[in-house]
């Protein structure tokens, strides 16, 4: 029986798509991610000293800041690939922009949940309408809207085009949003790097800085790994879509 089936259906023609080259790069990214994550945990919980006034709660800082960094990086990558897509019109660029935006939204959600947890114990309030918080919230909504544009009906290249346009405008909006909100005066966020404006309260202990940098590296590896995986998943999805289309055509004829 199986032989018959095989003979009846010729093997599906291979659609030429961006090849899913996994092996080497995936392994490197995965290895780097695991190693740096473990190192980050060591540095966060063993190496970095406990903050004097806030205590152990301050450890959430090592999740909060790198997530914010990854979110901004992801949106920047979306911005760059959106421009590349509009110029070159290659589907890979669009896939990168899309996957990166999705990752960015997830990490923004992490920032927006870890932030209030930390704020409750250090500022004694869940939320403050402060520039960086509000900008992050608006950024979250903007890229949710970006994902909504992706959910539109229609052919992929129309969706990709519109999403790319929205990605560019949305990213261009972010600095203006930040400046606009900054005029409501920032009181809460400490300036971590460099001297604080009042020469006190700012700054960071060297051991904490090391831990923070290690965590940022780990999160960047995580981002690169997820992006790579996500893109290869997306490519597989496209491939399967092509196969389905081919099969449907065959059934119709």
């Amino acid at each position, binding site marked *: 029986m199986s032989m018959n089936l095989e003979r009846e259906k010729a093997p599906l023609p291979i659609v030429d798509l961006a090849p899913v080259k996994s092996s080497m790069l995936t392994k490197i990214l995965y290895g780097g991610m695991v190693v740096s994550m473990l190192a980050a945990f060591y540095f966060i919980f063993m190496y970095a000293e406990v903050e004097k006034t806030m205590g152990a709660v301050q450890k959430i800082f090592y999740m909060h800041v790198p997530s914010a960094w990854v979110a901004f990086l992801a949106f920047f990558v979306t911005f760059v690939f959106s421009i590349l897509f509009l110029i070159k019109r290659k589907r890979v660029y669009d896939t990168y922009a899309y996957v990166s935006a999705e990752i960015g939204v997830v990490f923004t959600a992490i920032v927006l949940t870890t932030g209030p947890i930390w704020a409750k114990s250090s500022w004694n309030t869940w939320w403050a309408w402060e520039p960086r918080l509000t900008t992050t919230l608006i950024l979250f909504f903007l890229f949710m*809207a970006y994902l909504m544009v992706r959910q*539109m009906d229609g052919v992929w290249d129309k969706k990709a085009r519109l999403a790319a346009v929205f990605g560019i405008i*949305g990213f261009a909006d972010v600095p203006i*949003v930040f*400046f606009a*909100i900054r005029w409501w005066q920032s009181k809460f966020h400490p300036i971590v790097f460099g001297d604080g404006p009042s020469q006190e309260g700012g700054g960071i202990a060297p051991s904490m800085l090391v831990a923070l940098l290690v965590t940022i590296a780990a999160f960047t590896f995580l981002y690169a790994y997820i992006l790579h995986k996500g893109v290869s998943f997306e490519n597989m999805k496209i491939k399967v879509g092509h196969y389905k289309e081919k099969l449907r055509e065959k059934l119709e004829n």
Partner: protein
Amino acid sequence: MLRAALTIAKKDIYSELRTKQVLGTMIIFAGLVILVLSFAFDPANNTTKAVIPGAVWIIIVFSGILGLNRSLVSEQRNETMHGLMVAPMDASSIYLGKFMANFSMILIVEIVSIPFLFLLFDFKITGSILYFILVLFVGSFGFIAIGTFLAALASNSKSSEMLLPLLLFPMTSPVLIGVTQATKIILTNMEKLSTALSWMQLVAAYDVIFFVLCFLLIEYVLEV
């Protein structure tokens, strides 16, 4: 290009004046927003005066979004959008024409509904009316410029009525922040005029940046 844009704007306004559908809806909706605001903020209470400058922009934003939705979806019904795209002119002149039509419509809505708001809430302007008009102009310009662009973008979707507010509100947040702050100062506290002017500068900068950006990118939105 400008002539083509003017033609499109004229066409839109003529067809609007004939049916008065959108304009009527926008004005009635603005009235309804005022009504709802009177439930939310007790007009007899003196502290309500503080929210009136913000209420001006709530009216403009909500009734504006109705008009923006219509302006490009109406082109879709008989596939007239393709006609416009095939016509011998740039995509940017379609955008400019649509922008001018929407802008003049929102100005009409403002002229009708804002005096109505001040009247019903018994609001006495202590600041300068001239500056107030300037703020309205700058703010509506930015809101409609980016709104027309995003309406063109959203009109590709079947559920553009739902999509447009989601795209538009986060995108226009700098305009709305700047303009509400400036309006508050201008209507109640003229001593801080310099702050209001710098807010207006911020909004004007936003207007310029996004008007240019929309001009450049509209080609990609209105592509067949």
